[in-house]
Structures are given as C-alpha cells and as structure tokens.
C-alpha cells in the first residue's frame, strides 16, 4: 500500500468553549475520493478548512505529503508554522468554496491565470493557454473576457474549479460547492466534478449534501457526527450496512 498524502493525527479544534472536532484520525491516499457527510455543525467544513490552512487546529497534527502542515522545527523544537512554511506545504492543495469567492475585479481568464503566473512563476503565455484549456473543459470557453458578475452561479462555480485546477493540485477540497446554487444549476457543477474525479490522479475531499452524488463518485464515505468520525467505509458499507442509529436517521431525512 502506498503512503497517505494527508494524515490527520488526533486533530482537535475548538472555537472558544465549543469543541467542534474532538480527535480526528484520518488517512487520505493519493487519488482517493473521500466524501464527508454529516449533520450541519458536525465540523465537516472545519475539517477541510484546517487542511487549507484557513483554520488552525487547536491540537494534533496534519501531515501533508510527509510534512507537518501547522508546525515546523526551529532549533530542534516544534513551533507554530510561519507563513513561509505554510505556503510551502499547502502548495499542492486546492479548494473550491461554497460561495465561489471569485475575484470580482478580474475577468474569468484573469481569475484563472493570476495564481500560476504570480505563485508558480509560469510564463504568461503558457498560463494563458492552460487557463483557456481548463475553462473550455468546464464549458466556459466562450466567457473568457466576462466578469464574474455576468455569470450564473453554476458558471461561477465552474470557473472557481478551473481556477483551482490550473494550479495542478494533488489534493482538491470541495466545500459544499453546490449548496449556494439554484437547484437547476447543481447538475452542471456536479458533472464537472464527476469528470475531474474520473481523471483520477487527484485526491479529492468533498464536503457535501448531495448524497446520491457522493455515493456515486466516492471511494470512501466519512460520516462526521458530533466532532468525531462516527462511521467510515465504502459507500455501500456506510449507507446500506451501517448499524449506526444517528447515521440511519440522518440518511432517512435525505430519502424522504
């Protein structure tokens, strides 16, 4: 078995007095597709936000590709990571947000090109070419010079995915990417995710309420409940054969 690309080791997270995550242990393999489900407030989003360095764990360690994400060694002691260390380790991680978070003052193409040029120091020509290819892939090749506010929610989310993909991440995080969309726009976004998943190279972590979809593409489903991973396994194990009461009642709400 190959080495995991991400490891959570006894990770906890509290906001003030509220303990949102109570000791998460989790391995994610390269190219594995993990779906995270669970009631709202169960810490699903926090789980991946810590991996994207948007939220610092209260305790425990997250290892990315063999490197400790939130801590670094300094004079033989482990200290909180500084910006430089974070930026080195998170380089292989990309994220798509619930509310898209496109840059409103840039065109679609500029949105995609900016990071490869500025962060990866790719030359403009090739970044432009790759960005256009990526936008064509998500079906927006005709919108290159439009601004985000001229697009529908589904289109915006597809741009956000293209923007993350041109950075060639090894791990992609999806934070309830369809929750802010009108129902009729959900499918076009899911389709793009499905395409990405089928290409297979990237590890993907999807926090989602789209149960059917999660079961369809995920290698593994995690049921997060009350700050712990209450259930973990293949979709059929978790959904059909789990004895977990809370999971069953959670799933019933989706079936009805």
């Amino acid at each position, binding site marked *: 078995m190959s080495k995991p690309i991400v490891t959570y080791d006894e990770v906890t997270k509290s906001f003030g007095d509220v303990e949102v995550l109570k000791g998460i242990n989790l391995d994610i393999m390269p190219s594995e597709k993990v779906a995270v489900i669970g009631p709202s407030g169960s810490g699903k989003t926090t789980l991946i936000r810590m991996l*994207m360095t948007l939220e610092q764990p209260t305790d425990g360690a997250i290892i990315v590709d063999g490197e400790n994400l939130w801590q670094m060694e300094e004079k033989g002691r482990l200290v909180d990571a500084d910006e430089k260390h974070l*930026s080195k380790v998170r380089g292989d991680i990309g994220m798509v*947000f619930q509310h898209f978070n496109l*840059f*409103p*003052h840039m065109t679609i193409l500029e949105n995609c090109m900016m990071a490869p040029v*500025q962060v990866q120091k790719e030359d403009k020509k090739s970044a432009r070419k790759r960005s256009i290819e990526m936008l064509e892939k998500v079906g927006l090749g005709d919108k290159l010079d439009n*601004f985000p506010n001229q697009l529908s929610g589904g289109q915006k989310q597809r741009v956000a995915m293209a*923007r*993350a993909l041109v950075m060639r991440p090894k791990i992609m995080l999806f934070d309830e990417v369809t929750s802010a969309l009108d129902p009729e726009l959900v499918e076009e976004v899911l389709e793009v995710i499905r395409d990405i998943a089928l290409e297979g190279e990237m590890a993907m972590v999807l926090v989602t309420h789209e149960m059917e979809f999660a079961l369809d593409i995920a290698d593994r489903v995690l049921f997060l409940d009350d700050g712990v991973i209450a259930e973990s396994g293949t979709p059929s194990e978790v959904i059909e054969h789990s004895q977990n009461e809370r999971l069953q009642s959670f799933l019933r709400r989706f079936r009805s």
Partner: protein
Amino acid sequence: MRGMGITLTVLGGSIILGYLMAFIAGFCRLSNNTFIRKFTGFYVEIFRGTSLIVQLFWFSYALPMLFGIELGSDLVAGILAISLNYGAYMSEIVRGSILSVSNGQTEAGIALNLTPFQRMRYVIFPQALRMMLPEFGNYLIQMLKATSLISLIGMTDVLYYGNLLRSSNLAIESTVYLFILIFFFIIALPLIFLTRKLEEISKKGVET
C-alpha cells in the same frame, strides 16, 4: 485673476500629500505592529478632532514660536495642515475599504497560495480602491474649498486678493464675492466630473 496660482498650488500640493498620507496612515492602522497602529490612530484622532483653522495657525504661528520649528514658508505650512487634516479623514476610508473586502477573497487567495503581499496587491487592494474612489472624489472637492482658509494665515490666494479688492472699493463688494464664488465653482467643476467618472469606474467589476 491674481492669487489663482497660489490657490492651485496649495490644492495640488495638498492633493498629492493628502492622498499619500491617507494611504500610509490607512495601511499603518491595519499593521500587525501595535505601536505603529496606536501611533497612527493617535495622529488620525488629533487631526480629525481639531479644527483645520486651528491646525493652520499652529503650523504657521505656534510651532515656530513655541518649539522653534520653522516650516520654511506659509505655503509649506498651508499644504502641510490641509494634507495632514484630510489625510487623516481619508485614511479612515482607506482602512474601512480594505476591511470591507470580504473575507472569502482572502481565503481564495490563500487557497491559491498567494503570499500576503500578493493577496493585498492583486486581490484586496484593487477591490478596496474601487470602494474608495467615490469618497475620494468628494474629499477632492472639499479640499479645494478648504484652500480658501489659507488666506487667514496671510497667504495671497484668491480669497485674499478678493478681500483686498473689496476693502479698496466697498461699492463692488458683492461683485467680488460673486466672482470668487464662481471661481471656486469653475475649479470644482472638473473635480465634480472626475468624481462622477470615478463612481462609474468603481461600479465596474464588483461583487453583486
């Protein structure tokens, strides 16, 4: 009309220095360094909390007298007082605009692994600037009007010459002031148009 040169010089000087101050102080108030933040906060409150006329008198009379600090000329004193005063006001706009860019933008920047500087330079600041522009335009016009105060520290601007003219011939009093009014309005006109233009620019490419 005589005095126009002075009025425009003071206006130009105050605009450049004022905006410079606004950006410097605005960014300093967002600094992680407590000392820098507190110090700039002190400056902003002092200059916002006291009147511009008093500041003008301080710069041209009190400072040289009390501390022996000579600012060189009334021109420097006038420009300094106006720009520091308006710089203080506008730094609040700079600070407020930067803070009001949504947190999601910063997070998207982090997700793309931009450095903090790149996030400010390419993501936050361009959006904040669009929000600042209309307000900046308003302050531009206000600054023009504030320049008329420099006649009080004995500078020979448009208002000064107007007063001179009036005292030599009381019969034309109302005409003189009418002309001064028109003069300021004519200078303000391009600034008003500029402000409108800025508002249009700022409407483009913003979050909806």
